[in-house]
C-alpha cells in the first residue's frame, strides 16, 4: 500500500499505483469546470513511484501529448491538441505559472516530487484559466497532509548516465495545523552513447555537455482557522543548472550553460459554508534565467478573489476578479524595467437540468494595460444518459496574449513587436464516455472529437535581416482522441490494460505574405499525425510490474513538410517494477525503471538524440509514528 508515500495521497485508492487510468470527471457539479472537456488525472501512485525521474519523462510515459525534448535533460515542452508549447497553460494549485518572458514551461522546471496530483485537461479552457489555455492545461497541485503526528520520508534514486536523485520530507500534523517541508537534489551527466549519422560511417559517440543538476524546496503550511475557514501558504524554490547541448550535426560541441532560479509563493484563504465558497489567492512568481551571463528576470504578482454561490436549487454562479502585475528586466529588454497590468473578470453560470444534463455558460474579459483583449464566451454541456454513459460538448473562445520576449526583445538580430495582437480563436469539442463493470471486470472507454481555429498566430519571421514576431497565420487543429481502460481482478492478482491514442491534423489555414505560401495547408512542425500509448500492468500481493509502450508517429520539422527532414516514427518501451514491505512504523519500497527497452534510436527534436536503453533504481523509506 503506497498511500503513505505522500502526504496528499491518503484519500486515494490504495490500488491506484497499479494503473495508469484516465479519469473523467463525472461529477462536474462539484466544480465550476471542467464540463465538456476530457481530463486525464495521472495516477497518484504512479506519480509517487516515478519521483526523481523528472517531469519530462513522466509526461512521455503517460500524457496524451507530444513532448518535445532537446535530448535527455534538455529543454522539454508539452504540446496538446496540435498546438504549440505556449498554448498549454501550466497551473500550480490553480495559478498559471507559464513564464512571463517566453510563455512556455520547460518541464525541467517542474518536479514530480513536489506534486501530489497531476492532471491534464485537453482542449481550450481560456474562459477558466485565461491566456495560453488553448490546447489544454497541465495542472500540478499540492494537497493538505492528513498526517497527525510526525512523518519522515526519503527517496533515493540512481541510474544510468550518472543520474542521482535524493529527496527528504518531513510532515507534522497537529489537529488544525499541518506543516510539510520537502527538499530534493538531483544531477545527471546524460553522457549516453549514440550513432552520429552526421559523420561518414556514422561512428558511435558520446553525447556531451548535456548535464543537469538542481535542487528545490517546497514548504507548505495549512491552518484550519475554523471548519469553514482555511488558510494555506506554499513556497516553492528551485535552482536548475543545465548544460545546453549542441545538435549532433554540429561537430564542435558548445559550452553554453543556462541557470534558472525560481520562487513560487502562494497564499490561499478559503471559506465554505452553506453552498457558498469564497476563495482568495495571492501569489508571487519569480523567474531568473541566466544564459551565458545574459540575465532575464521576471516577476508576476497574481491576486484573485473568487466566489461560488448557489443562486437556486439547480443553479449556481462562480465569479471572480483577477489582478496580475508582471515585470520583466533583461539585457534584451532595453534599460527600462518592462511592466504590464492585467485585470480580468469572469463568471460561470452552471445549471443542473433534469435528465442528467448539466450546462455551463461562461464569460471572461481581460484588460491588458487598459485595453480589452478578446471577449471570451463559452458554453459547455454534459449529458448523463445512464449510469454507464455520458456525452459532453463544449464550444469556447480561446486566446493568448504576447509574451515579454514577443513585445520587448531587442538584440542578436531580433526585435520584439509592441503592436502584436493577442492570438484568439474558437475551440469545439464533443465526447462520449462509457464505463461498465461486472464481477471482476471493469472497463471504460472515452472518445473525443475536437477542432480549434487560432487566428493571429504569432510567429517570428525575418524581414530585412531582422527577426521579429508578427501575427501571421491562422492555424486549424482538429482530430480525435480515445482512451480506454480494462481491469481484471482474480484472487490476489490484478491485471490492467489501458491506453490512449490521438490523431491530429494541425495545418496552416491562411498565411500572411511573410510566410512562404508553400506552407499553406501543411501540418505544423513537430505535430505528429498519430501518437498513442499502451500500458499493461500486473499486480500480485506486494509486487507490481507495469509496461508502457509509447508510439510517436512521423513528425515534419519544417514549414512545408519536407519528407527529407521529417522525424520518423519512434516506439519507446518502459518497464517499471515496484515492490514494498511494511515493518511496524517503517515502510520501504523499491522501484526499478528500465527505459527504452527496445533500444530505439530516435530524436524527439531534429539533431538531438535520445538515449538507448537506460535504467535506474530507487528506494523510498518512510517513518510514520501515527496511524492514518
Amino acid at each position, binding site marked *: 500500500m503506497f498511500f503513505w508515500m505522500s502526504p496528499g495521497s491518503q484519500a486515494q485508492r490504495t490500488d491506484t499505483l497499479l494503473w495508469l487510468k484516465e479519469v473523467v470527471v463525472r461529477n462536474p457539479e462539484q466544480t465550476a469546470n471542467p464540463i465538456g472537456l476530457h481530463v486525464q488525472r495521472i495516477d497518484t501512485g504512479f506519480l509517487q513511484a516515478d519521483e526523481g525521474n523528472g517531469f519530462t519523462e513522466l509526461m512521455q510515459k503517460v500524457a496524451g501529448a507530444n513532448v518535445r525534448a532537446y535530448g535527455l535533460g534538455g529543454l522539454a515542452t508539452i504540446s496538446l491538441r496540435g498546438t504549440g508549447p505556449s498554448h498549454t497553460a501550466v497551473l500550480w494549485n490553480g495559478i498559471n505559472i507559464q513564464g512571463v518572458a517566453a510563455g512556455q514551461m520547460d518541464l525541467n522546471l517542474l518536479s514530480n516530487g513536489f506534486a501530489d496530483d497531476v492532471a491534464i485537461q485537453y482542449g481550450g479552457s481560456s474562459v477558466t484559466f485565461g491566456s495560453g489555455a488553448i490546447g489544454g492545461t497541465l495542472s500540478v497541485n499540492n494537497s493538505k497532509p492528513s498526517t497527525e503526528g510526525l512523518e519522515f520520508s526519503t527517496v533515493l534514486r540512481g541510474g544510468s548516465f550518472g543520474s542521482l536523485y535524493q529527496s527528504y520530507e518531513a510532515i507534522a500534523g497537529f489537529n488544525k495545523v499541518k506543516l510539510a517541508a520537502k527538499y530534493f537534489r538531483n544531477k545527471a551527466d546524460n553522457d549516453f*552513447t549514440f550513432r*552520429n*549519422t*552526421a*559523420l*561518414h560511417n556514422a*561512428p*558511435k*559517440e*558520446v553525447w*556531451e555537455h548535456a548535464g543537469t543538476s538542481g535542487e528545490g524546496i517546497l514548504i507548505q503550511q495549512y491552518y484550519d482557522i475554523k471548519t469553514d475557514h482555511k488558510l494555506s501558504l506554499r513556497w516553492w524554490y528551485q535552482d536548475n543548472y543545465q548544460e545546453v547541448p549542441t*545538435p*549532433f*550535426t*554540429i*561537430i*564542435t*560541441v558548445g*559550452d553554453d550553460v543556462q541557470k534558472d532560479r525560481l520562487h513560487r509563493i502562494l497564499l490561499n484563504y478559503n471559506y465554505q459554508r452553506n453552498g457558498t465558497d469564497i476563495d482568495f489567492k495571492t501569489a508571487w512568481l519569480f523567474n531568473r534565467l541566466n544564459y551565458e551571463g545574459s540575465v532575464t528576470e521576471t516577476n508576476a504578482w497574481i491576486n484573485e478573489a473568487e466566489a461560488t454561490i448557489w443562486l437556486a436549487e439547480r443553479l449556481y454562479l462562480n465569479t471572480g476578479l483577477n489582478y496580475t502585475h508582471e515585470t520583466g528586466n533583461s539585457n534584451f529588454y*532595453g*534599460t527600462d524595467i518592462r511592466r504590464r497590468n492585467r485585470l480580468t473578470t469572469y463568471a460561470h453560470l452552471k445549471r443542473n437540468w433534469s435528465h442528467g444534463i448539466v450546462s455551463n455558460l461562461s464569460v471572461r474579459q481581460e484588460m491588458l494595460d487598459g485595453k480589452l483583449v478578446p471577449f471570451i464566451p463559452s458554453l459547455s454541456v454534459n449529458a448523463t444518459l445512464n449510469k454507464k454513459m455520458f456525452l459532453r460538448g463544449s464550444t469556447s473562445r480561446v486566446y493568448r496574449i504576447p509574451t515579454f520576449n514577443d513585445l520587448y526583445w*531587442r*538584440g542578436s538580430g531580433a*526585435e520584439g513587436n509592441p503592436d502584436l495582437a493577442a492570438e484568439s480563436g474558437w475551440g469545439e469539442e464533443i465526447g462520449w464516455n462509457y464505463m461498465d463493470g461486472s464481477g471482476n471486470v471493469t472497463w471504460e472507454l472515452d472518445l473525443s472529437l475536437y477542432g480549434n481555429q487560432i487566428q493571429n498566430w504569432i510567429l517570428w*519571421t*525575418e524581414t*530585412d*535581416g*531582422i527577426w521579429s514576431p508578427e501575427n501571421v497565420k491562422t492555424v486549424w487543429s482538429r482530430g480525435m482522441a480515445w482512451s480506454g481502460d480494462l481491469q481484471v481482478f482474480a484472487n490476489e492478482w490484478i491485471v490492467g490494460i489501458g491506453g490512449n491514442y490521438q490523431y491530429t491534423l494541425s495545418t496552416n489555414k491562411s498565411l500572411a505574405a*511573410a510566410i*512562404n505560401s*508553400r*506552407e499553406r495547408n501543411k501540418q505544423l*512542425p513537430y505535430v505528429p499525425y498519430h501518437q498513442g500509448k499502451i500500458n499493461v500492468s500486473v499486480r500480485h500481493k506486494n509486487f507490481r510490474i507495469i*509496461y508502457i*509502450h509509447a508510439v510517436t508517429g*512521423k513528425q515534419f*520539422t*519544417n*514549414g*512545408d513538410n*519536407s*519528407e*527529407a*527532414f*521529417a522525424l*520518423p*516514427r519512434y*516506439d519507446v*518501451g518502459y*518497464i517499471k517494477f515496484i515492490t514494498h514491505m511494511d515493518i511496524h512504523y517503517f515502510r520501504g519500497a523499491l522501484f526499478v525503471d*528500465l527505459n527504452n*527497452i*527496445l*533500444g530505439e534510436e530516435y530524436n524527439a527534436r*531534429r*539533431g538531438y538524440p535520445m538515449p*538507448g*536503453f*537506460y535504467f535506474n533504481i530507487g528506494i523510498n523509506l518512510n517513518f510514520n509514528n501515527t496511524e492514518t
Partner: protein
Amino acid sequence: MKRRQLCLNSSVLVVLIAVALTFFSCSDNDPIPDPGPAGFFIVNEGGFGNSNTSLSYYDYETGEVTNNIFQSVTGRPLGDQAQSMTVFEGKGYIVVQGSAKLEVINADDHTSVTTITEGLVSPRYLLGISSTKAYVSDWGEFGVTGTVKVIDLESNMVSKTIATGQGANEMLRVDNKVYVVNAGGWGRDNTVKVIDSTTDEIVDAIEVGENPRSIQQDAGGNIWVLSAGYLAYDQSWNLDPENSTKSSLTKIVSDEEVLRLEFPELTFSTASHLRVDIAGEVLYYLYDDKLFRISVDATGLPETAFVEKGFYGLSVDPASGNIIAMEASDFSSSGSMYFYNAEGEELDSFVVGIAPNGCAFIQ
C-alpha cells in the same frame, strides 16, 4: 571540444526483460537519384541550428532538380548550415559551416568519400590548388579569427593554418596568387590578403571597402571585390548610422585598388554574391535582396535593379551563361531557384531546399 568517439568494442547493455510486441519500422527514404550525365549542385543552407541543410542537383539533360541528394545517397543528414561547395578533381567538397566540417562526395555518383573535421572551426569556402592541396577559408571561433586552412587532399588533414584576418571568406586564384577577402566574420575587416600558393605564405595585403565578402576576375584580368559594409547598433539595438559603413564595390589592378564605388544606402540586406558572366564582361550581385548587373567598364553603380525579387543566393551557369538566382523565403520551408537570361527574362524556376545560397559546377 570535439565529440568523443567510442571504440567499437564499447560495452553493450543487456536488457533484462523483453516484452513481445508488434513492432513496425518505417522507411521514408527518397529514391536514390540517377546522377545523370552532367549538371550542377545547389547548396541549401537550411535554418540555422535546425540540422536541415541539404544539397540539390540540377540535371542538364532532364532539366529537372532532385532535392536532398546527399541524404538520399548517403543515408545520413548533411548537417547544419552548408555555406558552399566546390567540385575539384572529381570530388565535391561541401563546406558545412555550422557543422564545422567538409563532406567529400564523388561528383559523379554522389557517394560519400569522407568527412573532414579536424582543424576546422567555422569553414566557409574551398579552393582547389593542386591534386594534393586545397585551401579552406575559416571564420574561426566567434567569427573573429579568420584563417585559411591548407588541406592535404591525400590525407584529408589540415597541414597548415594561415592567419589572414577577420572572417576569411571567398578566395580567387590567379596563377600562383590566391586572394582571400576578409569579410569581418562577426566583426570588421577591410583587407584582401594575398597568399603565394607555392609557399602558403601571405605576400601582400590590399585595403578595400569594409567587410569584403566576394571576389571575381573579369576578362581583362582585373579583380573585383564586393564589400558588405558594416551595420552598427546602439545599446537599444537601433541602427547607428554614424558608426556604420555602406556596401562598396572595389576594382583592383596590379594588386592596387583603383576604383571604389559606394552604395547609396545603408540596407539590412547588404551587397553580396558578386559574380561574373562567362564572357567576363558583366558583373552581377545582390543588393537589398535584388539582383543588379554592372559592366566591368562602368564607373558608377546602377540605380535600378536588373531583377526585383527577394534573392538570397546567386550564381552564373558556366555552361549556358544563364543567371541563377535563388530565393530563401522564410528559412523554414523550401526555397526557389530561377534561371534568367542575359536580358533578365525568367526562363524557368524550380523548388529547391531550404535557403539556397549558391551553386557548384562540375567543370
